[in-house]
């Protein structure tokens, strides 16, 4: 009998989904690749700045260990350390692989990979292909998967929507219910495992830097089937985006990596042409407040500073919520070469030439550090056992997740240029474990009664039909916009419990109105209306996960800022003092006098806070509400300590 080939279903064709598909095909598996659209149009194309790998080509002394430290520190120590460490150690090999796949990475005069600076580190660690690195990486993986498709190993189901996992009587995932977005047909597909690589949930907030498909629906569907959702409240607000009606377009961190400076006029409502405002009358607040990191502080820090300057100091440009991002001091040739693509986008959407006038930007919802809970297996020496089927498995056996839709790599705040890395890393890393999982299965989907698949399909056919028959007065697109507005007003950069409670009430009001939604289109061909209602339903649930998590977590960590719980770090505090403090503690009570005034008390507050809150938030679906609990974070490699970016 010929050996049975493993078969997988990958949902989503961005970097994580394509990397997983490529890796699985290399191990002779068959893959069904499901996507809303042709995979070449996935959201990964929007990533601009680059991908991190500590290759240290400039003699700066960078190393994967430093990359690891910067990443866990950037994430305020909320990420599992062996995973982050493994990712950072794999990063150089990943970048070299992508280079071999033909990615047009910028080069040095000698023809080697060029690297630039990015936020949250002091090293040149970011490889880049012009200002469209995500697009270039995605295309390279798309091409490899096309090769496997050409050879018959990959079947692409583009214009298809994932509705849910199919679980057998033991609760093991055996396939997925899919929806053909052209014919409207709902059917079940079978596989040894299903991999969700469905990206982030930005669309829950309405206007964001996300693409239209970044709706968070697939992971929410898994949550509704009983999977754990983790760290939902950690939403990254990117400091620099271009305001717009349909979307807030990202202005890459690479603009600051290449010397861009953020400032506002020192005088309120200064209506002078920015180029005529002398240096002395400009407030370069990031540089003044953070002399070492300057404009390249991590994103959560930069977004908070901009928020403070605009809303508390009322220094927004033209009295509006905007600040300048200024590149005009760099030569046009340099800017074209290093940043061409993104500056073109700015010019196309605003009509201003950013090489000649400072850009006007403002923070926007960008990335979710949280996502569906996934597992991992450490190899005992601080890295990952790449053969383990546990890697990237959700709490539903046989259902996996990779890329932005999982939660494991960025803690409470993601560093720039680490997302492309984590997407490709998870996709590749999970491959061998998935093959093992398939081999270890005692029974395969062929042994599962067909009624399991038929029932799942029938149930969804009924559900989508019921959405189609909804005839109430509410427009679902309007409700979606209102849902986004609730989150933007209450669950963003600065969080207060009273507002979070208000948001939860508003979300449940909206959930009641959802019952009176109208299906705006009841035709049978290429009709997005029923799907939109299903997506809205999931997004309301996801909004509850995010808001409830934010409400329960009474602390200030990374992107989750509650001023009420700020521990008020002394200005002259040095994070290494905390390491010393922890050491001294082993030998008994640490006295106030052993550290500068106020520091010991601060460190005690920090220690108590970590004891309570240095934990993963877990949301479980129970009685239509997210039930919140907490799990330990693996901090076995580096002592968590207060963050400081001076």
């Amino acid at each position, binding site marked *: 009998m010929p050996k049975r080939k493993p078969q997988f279903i990958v949902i989503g064709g961005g970097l994580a989904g394509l990397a997983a598909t490529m890796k699985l095909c290399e191990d002779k598996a068959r893959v069904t690749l499901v996507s809303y659209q042709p995979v070449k149009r996935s959201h990964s194309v929007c990533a601009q700045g680059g991908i991190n790998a500590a290759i240290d080509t400039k003699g700066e002394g960078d190393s994967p260990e430093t990359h690891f430290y910067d990443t866990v520190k950037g994430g305020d120590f909320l990420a599992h350390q062996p995973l982050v460490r493994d990712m950072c150690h794999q990063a150089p090999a990943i970048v070299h692989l992508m280079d071999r796949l033909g990615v*047009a990475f*910028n080069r040095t005069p000698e023809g080697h990979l060029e690297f630039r600076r990015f936020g949250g580190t002091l090293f040149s660690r970011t490889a880049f292909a012009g200002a469209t690195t995500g697009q270039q990486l995605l295309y390279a993986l798309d091409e490899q998967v096309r090769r496997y498709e050409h050879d018959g190993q990959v079947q692409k189901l583009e214009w298809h929507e994932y509705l849910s996992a199919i679980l057998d009587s033991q609760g093991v995932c055996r396939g997925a219910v899919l929806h053909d977005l052209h014919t409207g047909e709902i059917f079940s597909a079978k596989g040894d495992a299903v991999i969700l690589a469905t990206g982030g949930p930005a669309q829950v907030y309405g206007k964001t830097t996300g693409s239209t498909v970044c709706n968070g629906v697939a992971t929410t569907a898994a949550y509704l089937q009983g999977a754990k959702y983790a760290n939902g409240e950690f939403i990254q607000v990117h400091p620099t985006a271009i305001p717009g009606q349909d979307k807030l377009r990202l202005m890459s961190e690479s603009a600051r990596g290449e010397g861009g400076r953020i400032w506002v006029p020192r005088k309120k409502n200064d209506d002078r042409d920015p180029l005529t405002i002398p240096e002395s009358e400009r407030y370069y607040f990031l540089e003044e407040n953070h002399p070492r990191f300057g404009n390249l502080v991590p994103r959560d820090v930069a977004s908070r500073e901009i928020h403070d300057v605009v809303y508390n100091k009322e220094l927004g440009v033209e009295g509006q919520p905007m600040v300048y991002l200024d590149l005009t001091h760099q030569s046009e040739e340099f800017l074209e070469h290093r940043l061409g693509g993104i500056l073109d986008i700015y010019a196309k959407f605003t009509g201003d030439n950013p090489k000649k006038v400072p850009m006007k930007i403002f923070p926007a919802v960008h990335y979710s550090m949280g996502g569906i809970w996934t597992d991992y297996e450490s190899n005992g020496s601080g890295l990952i056992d790449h053969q383990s089927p546990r890697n990237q498995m959700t709490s539903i056996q046989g259902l996996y997740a990779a890329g932005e839709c999982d939660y494991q790599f960025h803690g409470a705040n993601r560093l720039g240029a680490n997302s492309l890395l984590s997407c490709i890393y998870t996709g590749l890393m999970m491959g061998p474990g998935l093959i093992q999982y398939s081999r270890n299965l005692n029974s395969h989907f062929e042994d599962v009664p067909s009624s399991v698949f038929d029932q799942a399909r029938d149930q969804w056919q009924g559900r989508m039909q019921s959405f189609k028959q909804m005839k109430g007065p509410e427009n679902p697109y309007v409700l979606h916009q209102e849902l986004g507005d609730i989150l933007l007003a209450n669950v963003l950069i600065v969080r207060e419990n009273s507002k979070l409670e208000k948001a939860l009430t508003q979300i449940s009001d909206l959930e009641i109105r959802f019952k009176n939604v109208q299906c705006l289109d009841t035709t049978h061909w290429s009709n997005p209306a029923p799907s939109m209602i299903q997506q809205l339903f999931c997004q309301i649930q996801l909004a509850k996960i995010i808001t409830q998590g934010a409400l329960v977590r009474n602390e200030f960590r990374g992107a989750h800022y509650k001023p009420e719980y700020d521990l008020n770090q002394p200005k002259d505090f040095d994070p290494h003092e905390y390491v010393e403090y922890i050491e001294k503690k082993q030998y008994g009570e640490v006295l106030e006098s052993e550290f500068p005034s106020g520091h010991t008390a601060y460190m005690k507050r920090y220690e108590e806070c970590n004891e309570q809150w240095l934990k993963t938030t877990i949301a479980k679906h129970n009685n239509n509400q997210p039930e919140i609990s907490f799990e330990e974070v693996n901090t076995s490699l580096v002592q968590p300590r207060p963050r400081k970016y001076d």
Partner: protein
Amino acid sequence: MPEDKTIRLKIKRQDQPDSKAYWEEFDLPHKPRANVISCLMDIQMNPVTRQEKTVTPVVWESNCLEEVCGSCTMIINGKVRQACTALIDALPQPIVLEPLTKFPIVRDLQVDRTRMFENLKKVKAWIHIDGTYNIGEGPVIPEKQRAKAYLLSECMTCGCCLEACPQFTKNNNFVGASTISQVRLFNMHPTGAMESEERLETIMGDGGIADCGNAQVCVEVCPKKIPLTESIAEIGRETTLQLLKNLFLK
């Protein structure tokens, strides 16, 4: 900014691939920084025509909304382009939206561009690597050559060049400028070049470069300013050389 605070859209609609097309008009309130996509989104929130008839929301394809994914390509006021970068204040009204004409219609403004992706398979538009294992660095590439390749690699398979091309029709199998340019891209790469002859043989065959009529409109409509005619000329030279080589070797 126009004085008129209303935006008028005239949209060509079609319910099914084989049904008859029809036009509908929508009046929308003007908003700052609006583009064609934000107008289509406004229609979703209130799908009522100028004649106050409630209709189904318009169906279109879009994703990134920042002109890097290629999805939202359509014909706007007679010109093929992406809808996301079509800023309302820069367009004369009524703004006329039509689907691409060179591809099968799915519904309304949405078309099926599968042919473009199939053509990429035909010419093996990929680098054939030994494997994904850690076998070291990629080839050394001069920055100048990299920059040239980068221009070509920004092609987002949007189809503007094919819509404008008089030689590319629904009824023939011409691969068009975008595919020819991808052949050049992969033949330029040190590893990709190892399969260059195979690619050239394909592009010399049926539906290949010989079908190009040299109208040069492809390069004019390319939103990414890819030097498509340069690519066609370059592949033209390479195929001629290949032809000669075939003559002498066979």
